[in-house]
């Protein structure tokens, strides 16, 4: 079952510039692994050894997965997943500009 995943600007280089992509999986970690097969390189930016990186926030329908079941949080058809670097504080565009300054 495909779910929609919002990709932050710094990772859009890996999704051919797409802001939103579709992925498959029953849990968040399965979903991330699935994204890796479609967009090689994206997996290690978001997770390491099966854990979401500390400064990457993942939201399922606006809820931080750390307060759900973390990597094992279930996802289902129609859920909206957002990946947001913590430091960006909800930033969208130009995030990369500051770190390349």
């Amino acid at each position, binding site marked *: 079952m495909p779910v929609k995943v919002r990709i932050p600007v*710094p990772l859009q280089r890996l999704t051919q510039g797409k802001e939103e992509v579709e992925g498959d999986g029953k849990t968040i970690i399965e979903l991330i692994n699935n994204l890796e097969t479609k967009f090689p390189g994206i997996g290690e930016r978001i997770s390491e050894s099966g854990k979401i990186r500390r400064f990457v926030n993942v939201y399922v329908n606006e809820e931080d997965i750390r307060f759900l079941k973390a990597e094992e949080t279930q996802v289902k058809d129609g859920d909206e997943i957002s990946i947001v670097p913590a*430091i960006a504080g909800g930033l969208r565009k130009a995030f990369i500009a*500051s770190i*390349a*300054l």
Partner: protein
Amino acid sequence: MSFVRGLKCRECGREYPVDPIYVCEFCFGPLEVIYDYEGIRKTLTREKIQSRPQNLWRYRELLPIDGEPGSGLQSGFTPLIRADNLAGVLGLKELYIKDDTVAHPTLSFKDRVVAVALTKAKEFGFDTVACASTGNLAHAVSAQGAKAGFNRFIFIPASLEKSKIVASLVYEPNLIAVEGNYDEVNRLCSEVANKYRWAFVNINIRPFYSEGSKTHGYEIVEQLGWRAPDNVIVPCASGSLLTKIWKSFKEMKEIGLIGEMKTKAFAAQASGCCPIVTALKHKVDVIKPVKPDTIAKSLAIGNPADGFYALQVIKESGGFGEDVSDREIIDAIKLLAKTEGIFAETAGGVTLASAIRLIKAGYISKDSLTVICITGNGLKTQEALIGHTKEPSYIKPNMASFEEALKKIKT
């Protein structure tokens, strides 16, 4: 000569050159300055430090600047006061107050971080400095930025105490009062920092800025006669100060200026904003952000940037943390004032009140050497005490009226 080797991601270890950057491009972790400690060890001695002027730049080899200091030339080296009166009340043998209520020029420890940040901003060639602030940082950037000749943009929550707003405005910065809490101000500033090429001291200059906090710790070690305390109690907002004080003790050991370091680090927070202490008490590594509601506005950061690292330090050091009510904060401010003659801001009340709880609970043993870090001046937050102090004795200008009043005072 600089001993800085570069910047390094605290999470994945990737290294970067010295630039006004603060986030790892790969994993989004925060960047930290790395030093050549072997080189510092060879050149920096106790005697060399002691021969220098009494300001925070006496530890310059351990600070991330390349050239000469460009700001805060009189900042730092605040008193470390042996607090025997307070120790008596708390039943402790050896207690010290590290007193940044008298930091130069703006009466809080933020003068330390800003001294380093503005020196670095000059080295990077910025003409405008900026910050997101709960008040104390606004004062330090406004004042030191004026002296150093920068344009200044200061972003604060509009709900700040009136006295704190005036104490920024007097230096005539561009003061932007945002309708929202500190976390919202901070988020806005991240966006502003992306668009304008300004030195945001606590955003794109943060890796350098935060190193300034270490001087609070170096001074404690030097003023204790070159030894680290058994316990240090530190107020936590972002959690950065606690991690940097502990780092400063470790560095002192690393470069051979002290022999051993067994300091336990303790966090102090207000119950109305205690995400770090909550995680500690629940024994979890994840900091759950909160919406702050406390009189200790200078600590009201609901989503602490360095909260995770503060937790690690506390656990590694064998310390703990406590959170306290507004009532306890006020009582502790008054206790510090009437025992030691020091008027601390609300954050100081948080720190002392948390210390009292930690002592009562047995986390701090009575025969150990304890330092309480007091980081800001009470004249900045007088509103918090209105209605909580005694009234003056009102009299007429004659002896009879005075004698009458004296009877009441004596009884």
